[in-house]
């Protein structure tokens, strides 16, 4: 394992250190005093374990393919955005657009996530121990978003084949988002995931899926289309 102290280092120096150590075969890198700098550990496409002691700025772990990034603090906007595979764990809270557009892998936020969490997901899993802000899961095309707390306005708006589970209160369902009963398979999958990441089980989940009314245009449903975004 190697360690880098970010004090007085630029983001480029930090990321170059990470890449150099990975190319030399280091499989675990500890990053201390990140001081909420942006873009730490972006675009890494080989397996590695990054352990970050403190809060990070924007896009931490964005566009990765394979690494495990554990943030022992909070994350700014766009944590794990666009990732292909791997795991990002945030012990604290996450800002807007957490796990936006991910294609695979798992993003775990133990605290709350702000607005637009899991927006435009194309695969992968997002597990939030707390609540999510407005428009979370907007236009999810695939993948799973699990919210143990409450969901803000417009959850699951214009869903495709993404699936959202919410345990707490739903402020308002998005357009064409409908609630159905989770299957036994859904329940056991959620149970396993929460246990795996040490998140307390909040009890029953509601399952949100697409009502499929916006999938094909039908002029008889003009009223639905008019009010959709």
């Amino acid at each position, binding site marked *: 394992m190697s360690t880098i102290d970010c004090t007085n280092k630029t983001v480029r120096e930090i990321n170059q250190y990470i890449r150099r150590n990975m190319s030399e075969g280091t499989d675990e890198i500890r990053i201390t005093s990140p*001081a*909420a*700098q*942006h873009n730490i550990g972006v675009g890494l496409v080989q397996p590695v374990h990054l352990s970050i002691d*403190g*809060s990070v*700025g924007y896009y931490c772990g964005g566009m990765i393919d394979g690494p495990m990034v554990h943030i022992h603090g*909070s994350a*700014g*906007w766009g944590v794990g955005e666009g990732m292909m595979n791997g795991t990002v764990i945030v012990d*604290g*809270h996450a*800002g*807007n657009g957490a796990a936006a557009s991910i294609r695979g892998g798992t993003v775990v936020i133990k605290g709350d996530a*702000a*607005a637009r969490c899991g927006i435009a997901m194309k695969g992968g899993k997002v597990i939030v121990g707390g609540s999510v*802000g*407005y428009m979370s899961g907007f236009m999810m095309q695939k993948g799973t978003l699990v919210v143990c707390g409450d969901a803000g306005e417009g959850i699951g708006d214009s869903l495709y084949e993404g699936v959202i589970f919410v345990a707490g209160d739903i402020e308002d369902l998005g357009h064409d988002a409908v609630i159905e009963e989770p299957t036994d398979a859904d329940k056991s999958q959620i149970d396993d995931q929460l246990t795996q990441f040490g998140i307390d089980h909040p009890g029953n989940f509601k399952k949100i899926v697409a009502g499929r009314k916006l999938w094909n245009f039908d002029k008889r449903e003009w009223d639905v289309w008019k009010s959709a975004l």
Partner: protein
Amino acid sequence: MCGIIGFMNKSGAVTSIGSTMLGMLDALGRRGPDSAGIAVFSPQNGNRIRLRVKLGDADAPSERTDAVKTQVATVATIEDATVTGAYLRLEVSYDGNPVALQHAIEGVHSEIEVVSMGRSLEIVKQVGSPANLDTTYGLKDFIGTHAIGHTRLSTESRVDLSHSQPFWAHGLLDVTIVHNGHITNYHKLRRQYEMRGVRFYTENDSEIIGIYLRDRLSQGLSFDEALHASMVDFDGSFCYLAATADQLAFAKDPFGLKPLMVAETDEFVAIATEEQALCTVFKQETQAREPGPKSIRTWRLPDTTGKQEAA
């Protein structure tokens, strides 16, 4: 993509707030290299009013200083006058309407602008980095109870001293704002104010916030009510901070499109566009959180007048 910051020491005691603000501004400097500025509130000196007057756009002739002083002396008693950087700094004893004093000064020459006026408030701002601001005005030596600051990336209007922030709410003592974002109905609001004879000093949309708050406060709304009203009347993406002689507040637009982080302890509240500014200055002392969309929060200094008398 501007950076805004705010700090208040909740006990109401004076701290070396200049170096705190400089540290935070430096950490955000990357967000906006065009200009930097701070507005600091320090305990008032009797009933004196402090003014910072911009003398001109470039090197203003020295006789302009004398002309302003002569003009001020006709309506107020000048207790102190110094030229510092691009400003003439005045301390005056004056009981009249602040707007009348402001107009008297600005009547001397069209380039002259009263940048700040208040019993506690002083604004320093200029083109360039926060480090330059420290070099010119000795930011590190500023003391005060609370302050707001700004570092600017200009997107729509000119880069000069007048277009820099913080903005004083022209005409209303001790009210100032900093803003990150765009007020998209600025032109419409500006037209409405201009039809009522309000003077605008810049083409900067942020200026409307100070003018709006002055208007609402002078209509009798409380500070908090004025902030809530702005949430209805402003369109666009914005986070702004506003401060008065004893209050500090933030307002975040209904879509939460602009970032803002708040760190609060029993002793202080610190606000910054990015968490880096808080981490750099306050180390790991505190946990920062991002307020939700459409949120407003106000902090007020304790009323210490009674205590001072007892001491």
